[in-house]
C-alpha cells in the first residue's frame, strides 16, 4: 500500500473510529447515538443560521490549524498557538480601539497587528530553539500561560479601565458583515472566513511556491541534508515559528474583530489553539487538509451545542470524539501496520 493512499486513509479511518467510540460512549450512557449524531448534524448545517455559525467557527480553526501545520512542516511543534492567539486577539482589538482611521486602513492595520503580535510571541520560542536548542514544546506551553495572565492584565488595566471586557471595536476596524449576517438568518458569520481561506492559499504558496518554502520544508524533513545544501537551519527555525505565530495571531484577530468584536478577561484558554493541533494533524499539515479538517471540527463543535437540546447528549461528547481522533491519527504507525497486514491477508 503506497504512502499516498495511507496518508488519505489514516485520517478517514481515525475520524470513523472516533465517531464509533463516540457512539459507544453515547450508548453506554443511555443515549441513542443515531439521535445524538442526527442532532449534531442538524445543529451544524440544519438551517442557514446554524450553517452561518458553523462557518464562523471554522474560521479560527483554519488559522489555528495552519499555524500548527506550518511549524510541523519545518519540524517544529508549536503548542503555543493558544497563547499566540490570545496576544493576537488583544493586539488587534487594541489597535481597533486606539485609532480613528478610515476602514480601508484601520481594518488591515488591526488584522496585521494581530498577526504581528502572534509572530512576536512565537519568536521567543523560535530564537531559544535556534540559538540555545531549548525544546520548543515546553517553551510554547509556558508561553501560553504567560500570555493568558499578561493579556488579562492588559485588558483590565491598560486597554480598559479596570473592566472585564474592552469596548467594542469601532465599525472601521470590524470584520462584522451585515450582508453575511442577513444571508444566514442573523448568525455571527463575518468576513473572516474569506481571510482564512486566503490564509490557506498563502500557506500553500509560501510552502510550495517560494524559495523560502523550499528551504523551510527541507529543514523540516532533513536538517543534515539542508545544512549540507548550504541552508541556514537556525534562521529557518525562527522564520517558521514567526510565520506559524502570525497565523495564530490571525486566528485571534478573527475572534477579536469578528466573532466577538471586543476583548475580555479569560479564566482559561479558548481551546481553539489546542484544537488547532488536532486540525493540523488530521489535515496532514497541508493547506487543503487543514481547511477540510477545520470544517469537520467546526461542524462537530457547532453541532455539539445543539445536541443537549435535541437529544439530551452533553456537548462534551465532541471533545471525546476529537480526543479519540487525535489518538488514532497520532498512532498512525499501528493503523498503517494493520492496514498492510489486512491487505496482505486479503491477497
Amino acid at each position, binding site marked *: 500500500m503506497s504512502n499516498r493512499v495511507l496518508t488519505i486513509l489514516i485520517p478517514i479511518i481515525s475520524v470513523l473510529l472516533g465517531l464509533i467510540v463516540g457512539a459507544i460512549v453515547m450508548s453506554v450512557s443511555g443515549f441513542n447515538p443515531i439521535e445524538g449524531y442526527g442532532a449534531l448534524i442538524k445543529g451544524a448545517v440544519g438551517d442557514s443560521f446554524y450553517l452561518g455559525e458553523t462557518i464562523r467557527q471554522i474560521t479560527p480553526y483554519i488559522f489555528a490549524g495552519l499555524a500548527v501545520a506550518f511549524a510541523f512542516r519545518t519540524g517544529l511543534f508549536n503548542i503555543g498557538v493558544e497563547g499566540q492567539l490570545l496576544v493576537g486577539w488583544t493586539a488587534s482589538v487594541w489597535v481597533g480601539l486606539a485609532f480613528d482611521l478610515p476602514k480601508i486602513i484601520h481594518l488591515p492595520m488591526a488584522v496585521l497587528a494581530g498577526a504581528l503580535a502572534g509572530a512576536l510571541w512565537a519568536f521567543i520560542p523560535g530564537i531559544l530553539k535556534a540559538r540555545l536548542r531549548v525544546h520548543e514544546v*515546553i517553551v510554547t506551553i509556558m508561553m501560553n500561560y504567560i500570555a493568558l495572565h499578561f493579556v488579562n492584565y492588559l485588558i483590565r488595566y491598560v486597554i480598559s479601565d479596570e473592566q472585564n471586557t474592552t469596548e467594542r471595536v469601532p465599525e472601521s476596524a470590524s470584520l462584522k458583515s451585515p450582508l453575511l449576517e442577513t444571508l444566514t438568518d442573523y448568525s455571527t458569520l463575518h468576513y473572516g472566513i474569506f481571510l482564512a481561506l486566503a490564509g490557506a492559499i498563502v500557506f500553500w504558496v509560501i510552502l510550495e511556491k517560494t524559495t523560502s518554502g523550499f528551504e523551510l520544508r527541507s529543514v523540516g524533513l532533513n536538517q543534515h541534508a539542508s545544512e549540507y545544501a548550504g541552508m541556514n537551519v537556525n534562521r529557518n527555525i525562527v522564520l517558521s515559528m514567526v510565520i506559524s505565530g502570525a497565523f495564530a495571531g490571525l486566528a485571534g484577530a478573527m475572534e477579536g474583530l469578528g466573532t466577538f468584536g471586543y476583548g475580555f478577561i479569560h479564566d482559561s484558554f479558548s481551546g481553539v489553539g489546542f484544537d488547532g493541533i*488536532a486540525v493540523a494533524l488530521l489535515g496532514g499539515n497541508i493547506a487543503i487538509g487543514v481547511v477540510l479538517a477545520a470544517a469537520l471540527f467546526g461542524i462537530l463543535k457547532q453541532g455539539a451545542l445543539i445536541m443537549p437540546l435535541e437529544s439530551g447528549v452533553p456537548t462534551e461528547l465532541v*471533545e*471525546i470524539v476529537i480526543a479519540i481522533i*487525535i489518538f488514532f491519527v497520532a498512532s498512525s504507525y499501528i493503523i498503517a501496520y494493520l492496514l498492510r497486514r489486512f491487505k496482505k491477508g486479503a491477497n
Partner: protein
Amino acid sequence: MDIVSAFEILVKSMLFASAPLILTALGGVFSERSGVVNIGLEGLMVIGAFAAVVFNLTFASTFGAATPWVALLAAMGIGGLFSLIHAVASITFRANQVVSGVAINFLAVGLGVFLVKAWYGAGQTAKIPVPMYYTQIPILSDIPVIGPMFFNNYLTSYLAIIVAIIAWFVLFKTPFGLRLRSVGEHPLAADTMGINVFKMRYIAVFISGVLGGLGGGVYAQTISQDFSGGTITGQGFIALAAVIFGKWHPLGAMGAALFFGLAQSLAIIGGSFPLLSDVPNWALLSAPYILTILALAGFIGRADAPKAIGTPYIKGKR
C-alpha cells in the same frame, strides 16, 4: 494586617496550594525519567478530580469522615487506568508522545464533564459533602509562631512532602529506580542488560497516572470542592513546569512546586507585603512559567532532560 500574620497566611496558603502540584509533578518525574513525555499531567489531574468528587458525592454516607481519603484511593486508581491510554499510544503504538498527551488532556475534560452532565444533569457537580479540613497536629501546633504556621495545615500537604521523599528513595536508592532511570537515558543499553524497556515505561506512566490522579483528587477535595470543566485550569501544566524547574528530581520538583505555590499565593495576597505590592499581578501568576523558560535556556543552572525522552523504543533498531 501585621507582617507575622501575613507571613503565616502566606506559608499556609503555599502549603495548601502546592500539595496537588507536588503530587502531580512527582508523577511527571516518574514518567519523564523513564523517557515518556507527559504533557497529559493536566488531564490526569482532571480525571483524578472528577473521580474524587464523584466518589465523595456517592459514598459520603458509606464512609463518613473517611470519605475523602477513600476518594483519593479512587482518584489514584482511575488516574492510573486513564494514564494507560497514554502508555499504549506512546509506548506500544509509537505515537508522538506530545500529541498523545494533548489528546489525554482533551479526553479527560471531555469525558469528565460528559459524565457529570449525564449523571447529574448539570455541567457542575454539587459541593462535596465531606471535604478535607485543616488538621491541628497536637502539641506541635502549640509552639508559638511556628506552630500555627507549619502544624495547622491540610494533612494532604504533609502527604505530598512524604510522597516526594518516598519518590526520591524509590528512584535513587532502589534497583527499580535505577532501572527506570536507565530506560529513560539509554534504553538500548538497558535492553542489553536484560531490562524490559516496555514494562518499565508502562509502570512509570502508570505511576504518573496514580500520582496525577492523587494530585487532582487532593485539589478537588481541598481547593475546588466540586467538579466542572473549569476545575483544573493549568495546574497540571504548572506541575509540568515544576518537573522541569526541579530538574527531573523528586525533591527538586517538590521545591519547585512549593515555590510555584508560593507565587500563586503571593499573587492573591501579595498586596499585604510592602515590597510586592508594586509587582504586577500577572508577573507573579506567570512566575512559574517564566522561571521554567529561563531554566531551560540555561540562565538558572542547566536543566537537562533525560536523554531518551520523547523517543519511542523500537526493539531491534540500532
